């Protein structure tokens, strides 16, 4: 029986956590993730879930405990944001290197300094090289759906990598939206049981996890890890197919809106896609061939598929909710541009860095972006490669 709820994004993720019902959760509070763990803690207190809840004393310890629990042979989850993710940075790499499939809601919030509690993507972008699967969710429904699927993707025997599922801090986490959750039994069946490989708790078959590699083995271990990441795309698509059969909702590597016959398009992650969609509708009504592409899988980056979907366009604007301070633009721009390069088509592609520290970005500003794209198409000239939109000069 499908259940429709009107709750916050954090509640949506907590609902998924309840249904995933992990063996261990080790988490530390940080705005705006806090409500997820608070709700889950209440579930533990009420005996509604089986998890052993470890109220660790820092996020570094949260991830460390998750690695220990996962290597021990159990299904493990945690959740964090911003500085918490940053504090975990060292051990994110360890989790990926040890191939422990920890599953983590990650509520996007700006990194200090200055300290800011609102939404931008600098936190998860800062961790993009850690070897984690990264999935973005536009709204509460996607956050719920993605979390369930992330378990199956990360734990897949050809993958065995940890996964973080993003949603925008405050915008999605704290706003109330309508979303449907699966029947508990269906969700449990979809998620399945965790099959531990080389568990520490199998004391009759003692194993050593996390050895010391010299230059003669480290590279091979990392190559193996890269191969696992190579499998994620196909696994994610297969899992999405299975999930569609259970939920009726289709997921892919990314979403497109009015893209097929578009001449100009915006590429943007997460909740801003919702705002962009209303702008596309308005422009289409006025006869502008505007389109939208919203990546879902950011790690691995589905370069081929994204490039193919964009290959017919006359101009593209990528909107980045984080700056990588490379002076080349934000991470989404850099990766999308690279994907487009191999097409050999030289489609003018520009970057708009927006919304840092929770700066609201409205339809007017996105309309400006499309207007700039039309200028590029008409004049054949790109004024600025990297633009900052919505910031006071």
């Amino acid at each position, binding site marked *: 029986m499908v259940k429709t709820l009107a709750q916050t994004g954090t509640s949506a993720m907590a609902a998924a956590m309840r249904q995933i019902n992990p063996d261990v959760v080790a988490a530390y509070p940080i705005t705006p993730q806090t409500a997820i763990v608070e709700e889950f803690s209440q579930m533990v207190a009420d005996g509604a879930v089986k998890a052993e809840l470890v109220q660790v004393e820092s996020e570094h310890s949260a991830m460390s405990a998750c690695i220990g629990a996962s290597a021990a042979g159990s299904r493990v989850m945690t959740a964090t944001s911003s500085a918490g993710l940053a504090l975990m940075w060292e051990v994110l790499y360890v989790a990926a290197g*040890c191939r422990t499939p920890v599953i983590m809601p990650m509520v996007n919030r700006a990194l200090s300094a200055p300290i800011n509690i609102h939404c931008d993507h600098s936190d998860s972008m800062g961790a993009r090289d850690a070897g984690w699967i990264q999935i973005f969710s536009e709204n509460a429904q996607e956050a719920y759906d993605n979390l369930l699927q992330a378990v199956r993707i990360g734990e897949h025997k050809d993958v065995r990598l940890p996964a973080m599922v993003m949603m925008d801090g405050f915008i999605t986490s704290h706003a109330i939206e309508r979303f449907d959750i699966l029947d508990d039994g269906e969700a449990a069946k979809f998620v399945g049981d965790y099959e531990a490989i*080389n568990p520490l708790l199998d004391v009759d078959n003692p*194993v050593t*996890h996390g050895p010391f*590699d010299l230059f003669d083995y480290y590279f*091979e*271990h990392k190559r*193996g890890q890269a*191969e696992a990441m190579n499998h994620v795309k196909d696994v994610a698509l297969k899992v999405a197919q299975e999930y569609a059969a259970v939920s009726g909702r289709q997921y892919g590597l990314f979403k497109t809106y009015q893209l097929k016959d578009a001449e100009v398009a915006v590429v943007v992650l997460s909740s801003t896609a919702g705002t962009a969609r209303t702008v596309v509708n308005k422009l289409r009504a006025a006869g502008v061939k505007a389109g939208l592409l919203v990546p879902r899988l950011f790690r691995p980056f589905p370069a081929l598929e994204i490039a193919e979907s964009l290959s017919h366009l006359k101009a593209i604007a990528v909107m980045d909710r984080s700056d990588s301070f490379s002076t080349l633009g934000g991470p989404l721009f850099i990766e999308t541009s690279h994907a487009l390069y191999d097409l050999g088509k030289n489609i003018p592609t520009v970057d708009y860095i927006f919304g840092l520290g929770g700066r609201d970005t409205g339809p007017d500003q996105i309309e400006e972006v499309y207007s700039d794209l039309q200028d590029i198409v008409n004049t054949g000239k790109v004024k600025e490669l990297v633009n900052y939109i919505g910031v006071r000069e």
Partner: protein
Amino acid sequence: MAERKKGWKELEAGGVIKEAGNSKSYKTGDWRVQRPIFDAEKCSQCMLCVIYCPDASIDVKDGEVVGIDYEHCKGCGICANECPRLALEMKNEAEFRTKKKEKVG
């Protein structure tokens, strides 16, 4: 002859080592510059050398100390220093190696 090192496709994910205690195949005895010589006649079987050896290199058979595992003994000298009966004496390792490079033991 060195064993061929495994390629990435053959290695266990995460670098997990499944062969517990396989370090025994690594002969740290090569490190020695001095070696303990065991005199069974003097030994009172107190087992202090066993509990003090950092390398589990005191050979014990049927609950009795019978000698030294020269494949692993690093020649630290603790056993000789602690033995109450002086049943272990440190000697120069060179006395036990021929001029040619020979296998430890």
